[in-house]
C-alpha cells in the first residue's frame, strides 16, 4: 500500500501544494496517532509542529510537518487546548510537545512533562497573546 492510499484509508486527502512546496493534507476526523503511525511505517521523518494561536480564543492550529524523501508534508489540526500526544509512537516529537505545552499551555494527552525551556514551577503559556499583550 502506498502512503497516499494509507492516508486515504485514514480519511486524509491532499488539499493543495502551496508556494513553499509543502503538500498540505486535510485532517478532519483524522486520528493524529494513527496518522503518525502510518507516516512512520512509510519511512517519513517527523520534523516539527508549528503552533498558531487562533484569534478570539478559538483555540489553536497545530501544523505537523513531516519529510518524505525531501518532500515536505503538512497536516493541520484545529484544536482547543488538548491534543493526543504522539510521543510514545514517535519519540522525535518529545521536545516539541513539551515546548508547545510550555509556550501555549496545550495539553498533549497521554504523556507527562518535564520542564524544557522553562524551569520547574514556571508558569506555562509564555507565548500566548493574552499573557504577553
Amino acid at each position: 500500500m502506498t502512503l497516499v492510499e494509507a492516508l486515504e484509508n485514514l480519511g486524509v486527502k491532499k488539499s493543495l501544494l502551496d508556494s513553499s512546496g509543502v503538500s498540505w493534507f486535510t485532517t478532519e476526523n483524522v486520528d493524529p496517532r494513527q496518522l503518525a503511525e502510518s507516516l512512520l511505517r512509510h519511512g517519513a521523518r517527523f520534523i516539527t509542529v508549528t503552533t498558531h494561536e487562533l484569534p478570539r480564543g478559538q483555540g489553536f492550529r497545530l501544523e505537523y510537518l513531516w519529510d518524505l524523501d525531501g518532500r515536505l508534508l503538512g497536516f493541520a489540526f484545529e484544536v482547543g487546548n488538548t491534543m493526543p500526544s504522539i510521543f510514545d509512537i514517535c519519540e522525535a516529537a518529545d521536545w516539541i510537545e513539551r515546548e508547545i505545552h510550555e509556550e501555549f499551555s496545550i495539553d498533549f494527552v497521554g504523556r507527562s512533562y518535564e520542564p524544557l525551556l522553562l524551569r520547574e514551577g514556571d508558569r506555562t503559556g509564555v507565548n500566548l497573546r493574552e499573557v504577553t499583550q
Partner: protein
Amino acid sequence: MSYKMPMGPYHPGLEEPYKLEMICDGETICDARLHIGFNFRGIEHLAETRNYVQLIALMERVCGICSFIHTLTLCQALEQLTGVVPPPRALYVRVVMAELERLHSHVLWAGIAAKLMGFKTMFMACFAYREKVMDMLQAISGNRVNYSMNRIGGVNRDISDPEAILKMVEQLESEIARDLVPVFTSSFTARSRCAGVGILSHEKALSCGVVGPTARASGISQDLRRAAPYAAYAEMEFDVPVEAAGDVRARLLVRALELLESCRILRQALARLPSGDFNCGEPKLNFAAGTAISRVEAPRGEVLYSVSWVQNSRNPSRVHVRTPTYANMPAVRWMVQGARIADAPLIQASIDPCYSCTDR
C-alpha cells in the same frame, strides 16, 4: 550502586550551557537526562513584534555560527510570501556564503573535538584554518560573525573579486586535504578516542529524527542540498558522505569529508558566478497572507522556518524555527548509555550542538 552525576549547565567540557544529568554505575553511564533552556530568549515571540527589516537582523542573531543560514532560510520564506525572485548571481553568492559557513562551522567543531580528544596541537591548527575561512567571509561581507548578507530578493553585497576568493579556497583545500583530513581519518589518537564510542544506531537515528552529519554518520543519506535543492545547489556537483558505524569517529569522518565537498562546491560556484545583479533593488513588497515554509541544510543539519503573515500587517503573525540541534540533542541520551564518564564531553560534542540555536 548507581549515583547521579551532573555535567553542566556551566562546565569546562561544554561549549555552551546545558545540563546532562548522568546516572552512573562506577565509571559507566547507565542513563542520562538532558536539560536545556538556560539561554531561552523568546526570539520567536520577539519576532512577532518586528517588521521585515528588523526581523532579518533579529533572526541573524539566533546563532553565532550559522548566522548566514538563518537569514537565508528566513529570506527564502519571505520571498515566497512577497513573490520576489532573486537574480541568479544572488543564488550563487548565497551558495558561496553557505559553504564558507559550513567550512567555518566544521573546522571550528573539529578544533573543539580535537581539544576534547586531548589533541591540542590539532585544536590550534583547526583554529588557524578557521581564521582563513573567516578572512574569506570578511573579504566578501565585511564582517566576521554576523554577515548581514541576505535580504529579500538577493544579497546585500556582491563578490567583487571571485578569483581572489577562489585562490584562497584552493589554498585552504590543499591544506585541509594534506593535514586535517588525514589526522581525523587515520591518526591513532582520533581512532582510539572515537571508534566505537557514543554509538547511535541506524534504527535509533531514524526513530529520533536526527539530521545533518549526525544522521549521515548513522547511515541515513539525507541532505536537503540534494533532496530539496535551494539557491543554486541544483547546479552543483557534489557527493554526500555517509558512514554506517554511528559512532563519534563516523561523525568525525563525515564532517572531514564534507569539508572537501564544500571546497568542491565553492570552486564550482566561484568559477561559474553568473553576471548581472545580485539583488532586486528596492521593490515594493506586498506580503501575501498565509504561511511560507523554508528549509536549508545548515552545517549541523536541517533548519526549518515557518513564517506567517496576516493581510496588511507590518509584522509576521508567527515565526517558528526548528534548528538542527533541537532534533539531534535528544539522541545524546542514547549515545551516552554504556559509555565511560570520561567520554561524555566528546560524545555530546560529536553532534556539534548549538544551544544558542536550540534555546532561541
